[in-house]
Every structure is written in structure tokens, then in C-alpha cells.
């Protein structure tokens, strides 16, 4: 029988992690597929650790790594996090949303991870804990590439931090696939915009499933700033999107399609975020 631990405290979890080769397990929705009827090796189940679930904070928002998509979707959050909540309702079916966690989604580091574009648009940071201490990384510094993160073997991702400064404005998430539910994205977009006196005062845009990792689009964000809501569409051109993404060709779509689709999705997300 394999070792299986389900600690109640972070401290217990970290000391186990420091003592051997443990595989952290959160929702399990990305780990079980492809496995046999049980998991190999030593499995460290994180879902009983109370401090890892739920959303707290009055300034920065702190989302526990083991917070499920369902919990996120029904939480009361500012409009800036609406994109994240919309994404939560598009991760798999309801069964997956009830089990899958935001931390697991980030650690799995799929190019098509639904949580990533909204979190990029929120300038999210991740908190990593180890027996050596705690550190925070900006999300782009954590996600190194497909299935690769900056998490050290003795570290646990404990929380996602949404900085107060970025919890401003409205936001929207749109996801494109070839069917209605259980969609693996062809492309997805998150947009967060602040409007002051009829002008866009800040813009944060991110696109997923079009490049090896999801990306922010700083050039377009800058072009949007200062525009009116009505003229925002002009800033989002296929050429600028292509420069930002260098999209991929795969069985789900061609690169040129992704460029065009991402451009339209950006326009729609921006329009929705500005409503």
C-alpha cells in the first residue's frame, strides 16, 4: 500500500514534504486521468488543510490554493474578479468545478488552464511555502512553460494573492471551443479595464491557449489607455495580437485562425468589461 497523508495543518504538510518525495494532491482532476486505479508513490492530500481553502482579506485578496472553482464562482468578489468567476464556471463540468482547485490549476501549468488569463489580468501573485519560509512570485514568474513551474520540490503553493491595486475596474472572460460544455479552449481571453471620465484609465488583457503559456498584451493595453469605450476596438488589431502571441497550430485550430479569433475575443471581452 502506498503512503497517503492527509494533514490538517500546513505545518504538518510542509514537514512531510521536507522529509521525502511526496506528490501534492489537490482536487485530483488533472492527476487521476492517465493513472491506474490508484496513484503511485507517496501522496500528500492537501484538501483537509483548513487554511488553504477560502477567500480572505480586506485589502489584497487572498485565495487559498485549495479553493475550488465552485467556491470561487459563488464568492462575493469585486467586479475586477468577475472574469475569474466566469472562468470558474467554464472549467470542465460542474463535477470538475466542485473538485478542481485554483492552486492545482496553476501547478498543472497547462497552456489551456482556464484560471490563468483572468489571474494574469489581475496581476496575481502566488504564495509558496516551504520549511525554509514563504515567498511570493508574480504569476508570470511562476509559470515557466507548459507543465513547468517555479515551485521547488519542498514547496507548496498556498495561496493566490490578488493585489488591491489591481482589484479595480470591470472584467470579463470569454472562452472559445468547438462545443458548449467540457471545452478545451481554442483560445480564451480575460480583460480588466478601468474607466475614468469616459476614458480607459487602465487596461489589463491576457490570452490563453494560443501560446506555450498564457500572455499579457502590454502593447495593446497601452494603446487602449486613454481611449473612449466606443473607440476601444481600434486598439485591438490582428497585427498587434499576432506580435503579442505568436500563436500555435494544432488539431483544434490553425495559428492564423487563433490570431483572428483572439482579436475578436479581445474586443468582446473589452466591451463586456466596460459595461
Amino acid at each position, binding site marked *: *500500500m*502506498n503512503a*497517503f497523508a*492527509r494533514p490538517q495543518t500546513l505545518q504538518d504538510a510542509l514537514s512531510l514534504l521536507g522529509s521525502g518525495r511526496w506528490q501534492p*494532491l489537490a*482536487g*485530483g*482532476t488533472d492527476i*487521476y*486521468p*492517465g*493513472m*491506474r*486505479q*490508484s*496513484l503511485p508513490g507517496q*501522496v500528500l*492530500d492537501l*484538501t483537509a488543510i483548513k487554511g488553504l481553502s477560502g477567500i480572505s482579506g480586506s485589502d489584497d485578496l487572498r485565495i487559498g490554493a485549495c479553493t475550488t472553482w*465552485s467556491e470561487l464562482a459563488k464568492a462575493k468578489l469585486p467586479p475586477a474578479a468577475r472574469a475569474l468567476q466566469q472562468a470558474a*464556471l467554464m472549467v*470542465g*463540468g*460542474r*463535477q*470538475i468545478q*466542485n*473538485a478542481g482547485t485554483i492552486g492545482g490549476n496553476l501547478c498543472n501549468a497547462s497552456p489551456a488552464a482556464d484560471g490563468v488569463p483572468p489571474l494574469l489580468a489581475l496581476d496575481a501573485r502566488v504564495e509558496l511555502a516551504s520549511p525554509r519560509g514563504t515567498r511570493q512570485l508574480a504569476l508570470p514568474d511562476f509559470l515557466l512553460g507548459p507543465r513547468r513551474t517555479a515551485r521547488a520540490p519542498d514547496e507548496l503553493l498556498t495561496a493566490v494573492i490578488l493585489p488591491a491595486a489591481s482589484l479595480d475596474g470591470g472584467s470579463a472572460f470569454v472562452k*472559445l471551443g*468547438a*462545443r*458548449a*460544455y*467540457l471545452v*478545451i479552449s*481554442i483560445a480564451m481571453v480575460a480583460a480588466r479595464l478601468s474607466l475614468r471620465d469616459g476614458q480607459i484609465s487602465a487596461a489589463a488583457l491576457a490570452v490563453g491557449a494560443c501560446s506555450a503559456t498564457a500572455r499579457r498584451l502590454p502593447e495593446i493595453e497601452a494603446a487602449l489607455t486613454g481611449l473612449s469605450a466606443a473607440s476601444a476596438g481600434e486598439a485591438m488589431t490582428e497585427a498587434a495580437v499576432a506580435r503579442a502571441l505568436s500563436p500555435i497550430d494544432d*488539431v*483544434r*485550430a*490553425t495559428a492564423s*485562425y487563433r490570431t*483572428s*479569433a483572439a482579436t*475578436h*475575443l479581445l474586443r468582446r471581452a473589452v466591451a463586456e468589461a466596460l459595461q
Partner: protein
Amino acid sequence: MISFALNGEPVHLDLDPTTRLTEALRETLGRKGTKVGCDAGDCGACTVMLDGAQVCACLVPVGRVAGRQVETVESPAPDLDRLKRAFLRHGAAQCGICTPGMLMAGVDLLRRTPRPTEAEVQDALGGVLCRCTGYRKIISAICDVDEAPAEPVADGAIGQSLPRLDGAAKVAGDNFGADEALEGSLLLAAIRSPHPHAAFRFGDLAAYAARPGVAGVFTAADIPGRNLFGAIPPFADQPALAESPARFRGECVALVAFEPGTDPDTAGFPITWEPLEALITPAEAEAQGAPRLHASRPDNRLIEGQVIKGDSHRALEEAAHVIEGHMQTSFVEHAYIEPEAGSAWMEDGVLVIRACTQAPVMDRDETAAVLGLPADRLRIIPSAVGGGFGSKLDVSLQPLLGLVTLKTGRPCRMIYSRAESMASTTKRHPAEMTGRIGCDATGRIVALEFDGRFNTGAYASWGPTVANRVPVHVSGPYRTPHVTARARAVHTHGPISGAFRGFGVPQAALWQETIYDRLAEKVGLDRLEFRILNALEDGDATATGQVLQAAGIAPCLRALRPHWARALQEARPGRRGVGVASCWYGCGNTALPNPSTIRIGLSRDGKVMLHQGATDIGQGANTVISQIAAAALGLPVASFSLIGPDTALTPDAGKTSASRQTFVTGRAAQASATALRAAILRLANAGDGAKLALSDTVLTVSDGPTRRQIALVDLPPDRFGYALSAEATYDPPTVALDENGQGSPYALYGFGAQMVELEVDPDLGTIRLIRVTAAHDVGRTINPLLATGQIEGGIAQGIGLALMEEYLPGRTENLHDYLIPTIGDVPPIESLLIEVPDPEGPFGAKGLGEHVLIPTAPAILNAIRHATGADHTRVPVLPHRLLAAMKGNA
């Protein structure tokens, strides 16, 4: 020790805590109601409630449920029971494999939202896939969960929506192939080729077989009989266990039997692969000098079928309008939610195999040949079948199960993984089709020329059927005086293409019906009226020269007229379009015998025993055959008990394919019941109009004022042990096709036409289906609830064919990369049941199962063209392909 509450009862398990909850429920606790379709959270069949929230049990480590509440389909909760009754009332369960998952997701919703909207149902059930129903009846069951007002119980007369007779088992969690095995069964695992074409060598098999937990290793050398099977005996070419080289990715080359309780992990199996050059496309396979997959088949051609009538070349030269068209389709996976599974054991010297199948007698004969057994020493008991759609006509694991039990004398079981099921079983043939259709200045079709190349993969399977059916049907249900049509099946090192709902006709209809829209445009006729103008009528000859009776296509098309007029008004250029397409389909084998036999016995204890050998894979044969038999006998369905299918207990009712069971087995049931009735009337000396009543063991025959009572216990048992019984066989009368494909290949045809309304997103190339209106001529409706269930399910598969399904070996061997429609992808469907009775059908009834899929995809393509002007010559129309076509058009 892991303790939790299962359906309110405490349970304690001593298990690896990372064991999947599905495995713990099913294998340790023996609760088989929770089904496994993918082990990856892609299908939702294993949905259970964990502390009141739906989860996929396959993704939950059992250690995590300690101290918590787990609720499954076996729960006695009254609200679950109420939902089960709604499912039965609405016909929301067909094969039943997704039903437990649907019920649990439904209960989860209803506990949060007692009166849900359709959108809320879709959101809540979006994670459970169904391949049979098209989801619409599931939605209506959940939205109408409250008890229906008391209404008279349907007695099952012809035309009544009798809920399916096997429905109670379906909503309880039926017993599928993976759900039953004898105690102590060995667990089998296959070694499969990871390459499309590869030589292989075994290492030290004896050493591997001596490993702890391994009970035996089996290869081609162990096959006692002829190591070849195939659905069509003269073409049998597929080994149960291949010898080197393997000819497709997923081909089984060896088998390992594991002791019960052992993890059936084949890592380290001693085999060395040497990949060889693979012929992937038919063009490569037909290229000069290409190596042969099978020595006896030059040019890698399995077969070519043709139909030649008149002089199409000259007729097209003289035609006022001619349109040339091309169409290409992909491999399509059946994607039933039940991966192949079964078990085997010895019983009194007879090998018994219980597995999912559509064709028990074919399984028996093919497996007996592989195992070198006489047919009477092999018994096939079909399990409940979690969807088939054609693929479970071919044997899959039956010879493997049989081999191990025969060799070891021990019971065994085998369950395919999702990836294994997808890689190793048959697909719809990819087609490359080209040709021309012409009409005169008034729009009357004069001629058609067609050439189709079908990728039949590594082995024959049903390739010959596709090659023969396509030329017969490629004209569509339209008068076409001059026809030259050829279709050939070409071997490649691709997946085996076999039978899939329609045997090639859906592909051909895509080609023909899209050309029809372009022709109508050229002539300047309305697209629906153009079809009505050319619709086959009684007395018309088909492309094979067969003179039709009971041609129902024109009534179907005319029934669409008011809907069409409305839809045209609501259409918007660039955005919203409407399309129409037709189907026809000959029921039963193409000019080959395909008899069905039905036995009905009146038992001495007063039961009507229906020996029903037509496998019900969800389509409803158990119910429909009972209704037909009851009507012909003159007793209510409620007095019937079903026996079988079981090759030891039921006469051969043939395979569940070719839309033949309602027709062919229905006729056999009607004849058998009529014969039994005649015997009863003779015994009672009563006239034809006498009424029968069965009460306990007394059969009362009332003929006007005369009443005669027959005490069944007093009658001597006949050869079957019954007080009275009858057996009858029906084989549809056909005339063989000559060298030009002329003859009468089918005794009966069914017809239909569908209209699709949709909206195109011109920026993204995505499609939103708005509504499907489906008119199908069923001859005579036996059971409207089941008939509309077939229509809705066929349309869902047609949607998949048109818009999303494309199987790529090695790339899409799971249910998240291979996309099938979800509950949000099937729009409202209005079914119009048209009745043009066929004198050959039972009470006039015609087949329906395959017809329903054929028009959907071409109607979608025609609606897309109507909205955008873009022509499509390839399916699926993925968003990037649609956008490219629209840009090309602009």
C-alpha cells in the same frame, strides 16, 4: 481503515487511500450502479454526490471521503426515485450507461433549484455525456420531475408511448459488460501495437508468465482454431491476436491474465517493436508499387461496388445544368459511453461469454471458429449494452475472454480502457467523394455520376457493406434516370473502419445533398421545392431499377413546408440560415438473407414468454417487439415476460444493425404471435375475431356470446415445455444485384427529411444551432416515445459529424480531445412522425435507427451555406475551417 456513509449506511474499507472512489464502490463494495466511461473526468458517467455536491467518482481518492457522505444511484432518497420515474416517463434513458450519472447530476440540481429552467439543467448536466438520447428527453424529464397527473396506463397497443420495458433496470444502474463476473475471475490485459505498422518480437514470455500475480500469457500461437474473424465470412481477415507485423495502432498482439486482486499492469512485458513504413492515406495505399496489407488484395483494394443505370455520360452532356462536387469526411468514433467489457466461464462443458454486443449469434459463430469449438459448446449472453451504433457488431474481446477461459478452465473478465476502446475498435469510414449531378431546365434530375473512395483501415470488417450500400443510396430518395456510381474500400494502416449508423450513406448524403442546393440555385428553384419535384413516388424505379412502394419522402418534405416558409423569413444573410436534406435507407442486409426467428410460449403457469433475441442496445427492441407481438396475439404487453437474448435460450433474431429489428424481427414476432393465436383459436374452436384474456393460469377465449376457458396447466408440455407455443421466421424478400448493381436489394425503405436552422458567428466561425425539424416516415409508429428518442439521438450524432468529430489515431484517444456533442450542443428538436405504411412491414412499420442520422449533417452544411454563401467540402466544419471558407468566399 476508511469509514464513510454510503447512501446513509456506514461502510468500512481497508484500501489504498489513493484508490479511485469508483474502484472502491464497484470492486470492493460491489455497488455497480456507478458506471465508468473514461477514468478521466471527461464523461461524467461516474457522477456521485460527495457531501451533497456532484463529483466524478473516478477522480476522488477514496481516502478523501473518510467521515463524509457519499450518495450514488443506489440511494433510496425519495427525490432520486421521483427523478427516476420522470426519466422513464420521458424516455430519458436509452442504453442506460450514462443514466446513473445523469440522475445524480440531476438530483444535485433539483436539490439546489427545485424548478430549473432549461439553461440551468444544461449548466448542471454539462459534465455528463450521453451518446444515445440527444439529451432533449433528459432535459424535459428534469424540468418536469413532478408526478404527471394520473393517466390511463398505456397497455402497449401499437402507437402508444409505452415506457421502455427494461427501463426500471436502466434507471437503477443496469448490468453492463463490466458489472458481472464470477468470483475469482482472472483479469485480462491486452498488449497492443503503439504503431500503425510494426514488426514485433517477444522476449522471454515464460519468465514474464512466472511473475507473481500473472496467471498466463497468450499469443497467436495459443489460438486453437482459425486465427481470423470478420463480420462478413468470405472477407474474414482479422486475427484475434496478431502475428508480426501489427497492421494498425491498437492491434492486440498478446494477452496477459492476472490473478484477481492484482494490478493488471503490463509494464515490462517482453516485446520489441520495429516500426515499419505505414500507408496512412488511401492515396498512398493505391500508389503504384505500394506494398499490400493483405497478399490477396491487389492495390490494397478490398472491394468495389457499383450501380450503373442508363447512360449517365450522355445524359449529363445534354443536361441544362450540371454541378460537380467534392466532399471529404474523417474517421468518426462511435464514442459509446461503455467501453467494451465482458466475462467468461465454463458451465457444464460449455464456454459461456457474457459481453456487450449487437450480434450474439455472429459473436458465437466467429468466436467458435477462432477457438476451434463447435457452435453448441459456446454460449453468448449479451450483457446490457452501453451504446453500440455499429461498432459492437464486430467481435472485440469475445475471442480473448474465450481463449483464456478455455485454456485455463478459469473464469475471467476484461474491461477496455477508454483509450483502448477508441484505438482498437472500428470507426466510420473516412470518405473522399467526387462526381456530378445534372438536371434539365425545369429542375428535374437527369443523371448522377459518383466516385467514392473509402478508407477501410487495416481489416475488412464491414467495408464490403459500405462499398455496396453507397452506390445504391447515393442518388438520395430522388428520381434519377441515369446513374453511374462506384464506391471502393481501400486498406490502409489506419483504424479499422466498420459499421457506424448508416454504413457510408451519411457520407454519401453529404456529397449529394450539398450539390442539390447548388443545383437548385442554378435552376432558380426553392431548395425544398426542388427536392419535392424530384422526390421518388410510388411506382418510380430507383437507381437499381427497383420499383418502389410506400415511398414516403414527398410526404416528409411536404410536411416541412410551413416550417420552411417561417424559417426563410427568419433567416438573415451573413448570420442566420436554414438548410434541408433528405434520407432514404433500405432496411436489412443488401440483397443478402438476414432472417429473424421469434418464439413465443404460453407457459403452463399462465405467462406469455417472448424469446426475444434482438439485442436492445438502447433503441428499444425489447419494447417494440413486445408491442408488435402483443398486438398480433391479442393479449396486453403486461402479460408478456421477456427471455434473452441468449444464444442458448433465444432463436436467432439476427444482428441489431441496418435498421432491421423493428421490421425484420418485428415481422417474425408478428408471424409467431399470429401462429400462436391461431393455435389458441383452433383449440377453442373460435373465429378470427375472438378476444383473448389471460387470468392466472386460465386463458379465456370470447367469440361473440361464446366463451371458452382453457386451463393451461391441463395442457401437456410441448417440445419447449410450454402449454402452447409458436416459432416463426421472417426473411425479407430481395432480388440480388447483377453486375451493374441492378436488382431489388431491400424489401423495404424508410424515408425522412430534416430542416436545420442555425446562426453563424461571422467573426469566430462558430455555429449555434437554433432548431431542428425532423419529418420521418416510419410507416406506422409502434411507439412514439421510442421513435422520437431515435430521431433526437441520431440528430445529435449528425451534429457531431458535421461540426466537431474527427478521430486522429494517437491524438484523440480520449473524450476531451475527441469531441462529441454535450447537452448544450443539441437544440430543440421537433419530430414529425409521418406514416406511409409499407405492406411488407409489421403493421406497416419501417426501420428508423439509421435514417435519423443521415440528413442532419448535410442540412447543417446547407444552412451554413445559406447563411454565409460558403461551400464546404470537408467535415467537420471546425470554426477555423468555416472562417477560412467564409474568407475564401469573400
